Each structure stands twice: as structure tokens, then as C-alpha cells.
């Protein structure tokens, strides 16, 4: 305890457990590390992610949140190129600003109510501060700018973690606070605009980064519907998206490393030379679009049921539009890879030990779609921790 009313509090609730378990699996897929510094910060970021997941009040959340942001920086700039360092600076600017807003919000909460509980009753202005701080991490427009800059320069496994769960910590905070302010307009705008930009982006990692912005905006959208089923879908989406997007980024890394290709437009005919990699890419893409019986469909269904039950037709339409946009920025790559003209690029499938994590995410996408046991967990999490 730091002062009367100010104490760090960790707890286990269904939402936190689901988040932490997802992190555990995702971090496992991202091993092995590329050196001592990398390995250390991989571990540190994991610890703070679990901390964020199990945080029991605003103060604990803030502390772990900020430390998480900072400890990701060395991973993002790992390659130490000019571009990477510049992106790292932009990243720090964004997350530190967001963190300051969040700090202000927490301080204001304490000043107003004398506690730092998640559900402390505060004025909309204070809630707005907290949300603004969280939005930077959650990559809502207009504070999304760090995402398309950080992802392309980071090593692919780091991008997998960033897209998978780092962005989600912002959404997690929003769920914890459970605001009455509706984020639907901003979230809807983010889904659509980020999706459209993704279609027009050629750099593969940057395209996937914009896809993350679009997809993760589903969570605040679902949250704003104020229906437990929609919220359950949003929570589940964090998990399923983490695996799918993580897998896609790992694929991108393998493609870069074993075929030397950064751009989507150069991936024509690649599937004939790297069938396993592109096969996993295809499965993951279909999952992102939400084709049954993959995991992406499960989240779409649960979110959609909640939105329909609550009569949120606009959100439902945005959900469908988001799926269409995902198809528009993923399917052309898949189609060109399998059916495109043979390219002059020489490439071959990576050795098994590099393929295993990617294949594991593809398998998870299928299994979680066919056996949606996690839906119940998400429903419990929505009921209790939301």
C-alpha cells in the first residue's frame, strides 16, 4: 500500500485468466529469442502483460500498462536500423502521451472518489481522459499512428505480439472501466477507414498492421453495444485475433526471410514454392474474414448475436463491412499466391522448426472454430469482469 486508498491489487477473474492464457500461448509461439537482450525483454513484456491482465484496480493497471509499453520499445527497435529507431521514437511519443493521459485520469479518479477501483464513479470528463489514454494503445483513430510505423520495422515475432496482445491491452482497459460513453462512432470509423487503407497498402507487414487497427476496433464497438453477448464476442475476439494475426505476422516474417519479399504485390505464385507457409496463410486469412467453421466466424457470430439482440443494427452492419474489407485486403494476396503467374523469385518453405509456430496458429484457428469451448469462458468473463 502506497497511501490510504492507493494500493496495488492483483486478482484472478475469468477475463484476466483468458487474457493471460492467450498471452502464454502467444509468447510460447514466438520463441526462440534472437539474443540475450531480445530474450530478456520477451520475458519482461510477458510478465507485464500478465500483470495488466490480472490488475485489480486502476493503479495496478496503469503501472503494468506503462511498464509494458516501455519494455516493448527495445523489441521494436531490435534491428537498430535508422528506420527502426525513428519508428521507435514515434512509438514512444504516442504511448507516453497516452500513458500521461491515463495517469491524469487515474489521479483525477483518486482525487474525486478516494479510490482507484475500476468501477469508481467518476464524471464523464474523467472517463474521457481514461478512454483517451487507452485509445492510443488500442489504436483507435485518430491516435492509431504508432501502429503502421512500428509493425513494419519490428521483427516479425515482435509484430505478432504487438498486434496480438499489446493493442488488446488498451481494449482490455476499456472493458474494465466499462464506460457509459459510447465509443461506437469512433470504433466504427476505425474499422472502416483502417480496412480501406489496408486494401491500398502494399507492404505486407504494414497491411497487416492496418488490419489489426481495423479488427481490434471491434472490441470497443462490441463494448458500446451494452449487451453481454456482444461483449463476450469482443473478449473472445481478442483471443482468436491474437492467434490469427500472430500467425499472419509470423508468416510475413518467414516470407521475408526465406523469399526476400516485403510487398504483397510481389507474392504472385509464391504458394507453389512455399506451399506450407502459404497454406497456413490461407487458413489464417479465411479465419480473419470469418468463414465458418473457423475461429473468426465464432467471434463474428457471438458479437453479431449480441448486436442483433440489442437492436444495434449500425454496429451489425459495421461488423459485416469489416469482414468484407478483410476479404478485400487478404483474399487478393491468397489468390495471387496460389493462382498467380510463377514469379522469378527463388523461395522454398522454411525448415520445420520455423514452420511449427505458424502451423500451430492455423491449427488453433481451425480447432477453436470447430470446438468453441472458449465461448463459455468469454460469456462468464463478460458477465463477471466486464
Amino acid at each position, binding site marked *: 500500500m502506497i497511501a490510504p486508498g492507493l494500493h496495488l491489487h492483483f486478482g484472478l477473474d475469468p477475463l484476466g485468466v483468458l487474457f493471460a492464457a492467450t498471452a502464454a500461448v502467444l509468447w510460447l509461439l514466438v520463441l526462440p529469442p534472437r539474443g540475450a537482450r531480445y530474450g530478456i525483454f520477451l520475458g519482461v513484456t510477458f510478465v507485464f502483460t500478465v500483470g495488466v491482465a490480472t490488475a485489480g484496480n486502476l493503479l495496478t493497471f496503469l503501472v503494468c500498462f506503462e511498464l509494458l509499453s516501455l519494455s516493448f520499445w527495445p523489441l521494436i527497435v531490435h534491428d537498430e536500423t535508422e528506420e527502426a529507431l525513428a519508428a521507435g521514437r514515434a512509438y514512444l511519443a504516442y504511448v507516453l502521451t497516452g500513458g500521461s493521459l491515463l495517469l491524469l485520469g487515474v489521479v483525477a479518479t483518486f482525487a474525486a472518489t478516494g479510490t482507484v477501483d475500476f468501477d469508481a464513479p467518476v464524471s464523464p470528463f474523467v472517463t474521457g481522459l481514461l478512454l483517451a489514454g487507452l485509445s492510443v494503445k488500442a489504436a483507435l483513430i485518430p491516435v492509431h499512428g504508432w501502429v503502421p510505423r512500428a509493425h513494419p520495422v519490428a521483427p516479425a515475432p515482435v509484430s505478432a505480439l504487438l498486434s496480438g496482445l499489446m493493442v488488446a491491452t488498451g481494449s482490455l482497459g476499456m472493458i474494465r472501466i466499462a464506460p457509459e460513453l459510447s465509443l461506437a462512432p469512433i470504433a466504427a470509423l476505425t474499422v472502416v477507414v483502417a480496412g480501406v487503407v489496408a486494401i491500398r497498402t502494399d507492404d505486407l507487414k504494414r497491411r497487416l498492421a492496418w488490419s489489426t487497427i481495423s479488427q481490434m476496433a471491434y472490441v470497443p464497438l462490441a463494448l458500446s453495444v451494452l449487451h453481454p453477448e456482444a461483449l463476450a464476442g469482443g473478449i473472445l475476439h481478442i483471443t482468436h485475433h491474437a492467434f490469427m494475426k500472430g500467425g499472419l505476422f509470423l508468416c510475413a516474417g518467414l516470407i521475408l526471410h526465406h523469399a526476400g519479399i516485403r510487398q504483397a504485390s510481389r507474392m504472385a505464385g509464391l504458394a507453389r514454392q512455399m506451399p506450407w507457409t502459404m497454406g497456413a496463410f490461407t487458413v489464417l486469412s479465411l479465419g480473419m474474414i470469418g468463414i465458418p467453421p473457423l475461429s473468426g466466424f465464432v467471434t463474428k457470430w457471438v458479437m453479431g*448475436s449480441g448486436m442483433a439482440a440489442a437492436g444495434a443494427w449500425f454496429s451489425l452492419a459495421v461488423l459485416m463491412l469489416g469482414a468484407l474489407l478483410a476479404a478485400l485486403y487478404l483474399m487478393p494476396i491468397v489468390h495471387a499466391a496460389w493462382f498467380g503467374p510463377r514469379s522469378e523469385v527463388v523461395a522454398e518453405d522454411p525448415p520445420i522448426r520455423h514452420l511449427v509456430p505458424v502451423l500451430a496458429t492455423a491449427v488453433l484457428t481451425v480447432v477453436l472454430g470447430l470446438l468453441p469451448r472458449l*465461448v463459455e469462458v468469454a460469456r462468464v468473463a463478460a458477465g463477471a469482469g466486464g
Partner: protein
Amino acid sequence: MEIGTLGHFTFQVDSLSLHFATFAGLIWVGVTLYALASGPSRRFLLPCAGAFVAVMGVFFAGDLLTLFLFFEALGILGFFLVREGKEARSAAIRYFWTMLVGGLVLLAGILVHASGDDGTLLLLLGFGVKAGMLPVHGWLPAAHGKAPPPASALLSGVMIKTGIYGIIRIDPGSALLVLGLGGALYGAARALTQSDAKRLLAWSSVSQVGVILTGVWAGSLGHIATHAWAKALLFMAVGAVLLRTGTVQLPRLGGLWRAMPVTFGLAVLGGGALAGLPLLRASAGKAEIHHALEGLPELAFFLASCGTVAVVLRLLSGIFLGPRREGTEAPGLMVTGMGVVALPLLLPARPEDLLYFGLTVVVGTALHRATRRWHPAYPASGEPPRSGPLRLPALPGPLRRMPVSPRLRIRFPDLAPRVDRYTRETGANLALVFVILLAALALLR
């Protein structure tokens, strides 16, 4: 139909499922035999087998979630079936996107329905896309017209019936009458302007789907199986002609009745069943529908039936009649396949409806001869003509330019000319569709 729960696939069998599955199964047997005549090809047989599983999954689905799963699978497999045709790559891509958007609309409809609200419009549009119902029929002529003939037989014969199956399950009400009759008339009219036999059959499918949906509204399902068998048979016959003569352009064909007598006979059987030839039991489906209508819908249905007769005559006379030509009969396996599908059509009819159908045959023949000019002869350049003079004057310039941003055009360079052609041709015809629908609605009130 109930919604179902995630992760649990349920199946059920009732008389409707069995009816659909039976004729679908028969057609699959016939088409597979037919396709094997050109040698076993994994490119066709794999998606063919997959589509069979998907179709059976749709018909035997016990809840909407299971149905949706197999429905989407069918959309993807159809892509693989269509793209093997000559110059069918872009038609296949268009098919894929149409099915994807249709699937999203359908999913939205299922979600709305699950929450207790009225999702009928969304469900109708979602299923209607797959069925080739007006006004979401636009993908059909390109996809079925360009796909290889055995694939078209499966697509037009069975796969669009999955959409119809869904529509029957959701029971949409009187919208079906308008959309059905409108589609029946419009499809027949467009079919009469075609010089490509496969495209003609594809537009005929649009028309027949309209007839079927009118039947669904009237409570009669008899024409569904008839159309499935007849259309599959006709596509297979055209495919045999394509194999032996190398073309499906009607202006270039003719006089093959002597050279390919068996194919000719089977095509007459198929076309006759479609047109409602009085001697066949299969025509009873259409008779039932006719009996259930009265007033303006009955007149519209009569006109559509005449249109069907005209279309069948156009096709058969274009390919088989006329001055004698050289050629060889289709390979034995193809004939066997067609024979399998033709078997159910051979049952003799009941005498009740001779007068009605006799009348349609007379008027239809007159219609065929009167609209001969609609389907132009070959221009000097040798290029096959596109759809004939049922092209209204093009939309004025500003309306013609699709709201596609210049940047998007740069991104997808082959999109621009396609968009222009699409708006020029289709835009005007869409206006015609709209007028028909409005007129039908206004007159039916």
C-alpha cells in the same frame, strides 16, 4: 428453421430434404460420368466431389448455422468449378465476391432472425443471390456461361437450388410473386438476345428460377426437379456440341441433328421438359403453378412460358436444325451421363393440361420467329457479338460513371474498362428490371 448452436452440427431428414437430395444425387451421377468422358481431371473432380458434399450438407442441415456453413463452402467450391472454363477467370473471381457479399447479407439475416426481429428481407436477398433471383442475379450469366459445361450443369442444375431451398425454408411471402414473375419475364427476354448457347442457357436459368419462385409462392415445388434435370441435360448437350464442333456460338452452328442424333434427341427431351411439352410428366410442375395463379399474374406467367418455349426453340433450332452439317456423335460416356439425367423426364404426362401447353407452344413458336433479329448474325469482324438489341440507349455520361475513385482504378487497372462496360450494358438493363418490378408491384396492388 431453428438457429442452432455454435460447434454443434445438426442434420435432419424430411420430405423436402429428400426431394432435393434425390434429384441432386441423380444429376451428380450423370454429370460425373459425363465429365469422365474427357478423361479424369482432378481440377474438376475434386471441387465436384466437394460441392456434392456441400450440397448434401445444405439439404440435410438441421439448423441455420449448419446450413450456413455448407452454403459458404459451396460458394468457395463454385469458384473452383467456374474458373476452369475458357476465359472464365474473371467470371470466377466475380462469382467469389458475389457469393462472399451474399454470404454476409445472409449471415446478417440469420443473426437478425435469431434475435427475434424480422430478418426476412436480408435472408431472402442472401439466399436469393445464390439462387439467381432478381435483382441479385447479375453474376449468373457470366459464371454459368463461361464455366466448363459439366460445371455449368452442376451450377445451374443443383447449386442454385440450394438458394431456392433456403428461400422455401424461410417462407418470405408475396415478395416472391413479384420477384419470380419479373425474373421469369426478364430472363427469357435476355435469353432471346444471346448468340452464345451457354449464356443463353444461363439467362434461361434466371428465367426458370423466377418460374420456380412463383411456384414456391403458389405452393408448388414440382418445377424444381424438372428444371434441374432439364437444365443439366441441356448444358451437357451443349457441351457435347462444343466438344465436337469447337464452338457454342449459335450463328456458327446448325444442322447437327443428323450428325449427333442422340444428343439431339436428349436435348429435345430436356428442352421440351423445360418448355412444358404436353407429353411429359415433368411438365406437370408448370401446370400446377399455372393453376394457382389468376388475373395479371396468370397472364404474366403465360407470357413467361411462351418466352421459355421461344428460348428452347432458339437454342435447339440454332444448334441442330438447318442445313445438314458434318460431325460425330458425342462420346459414349457423355451420352451415358446425359441419359442418366434424362431418365426421370421420360415419364408420360397426364392429359389434363394439353390445351394450355399447346397454346404456349403455338405462341412461343411465333415469338421465336418474331424475335429472330434480336440475336444478331456474325458481324464481319468475326468477333462474337455480345447481347443483342435489347440494349436501351446508354445512360447519360454523368450517370454512367460509376462512383469508383480514380485511385481505386489505378490500384486495380483492369477494373476500369470492366466497370465501364458493366455500367453501359448492365446499367441500362437494370433500369429495365426496375421498371418491370415497379409495374408489377403497381399492378398487383
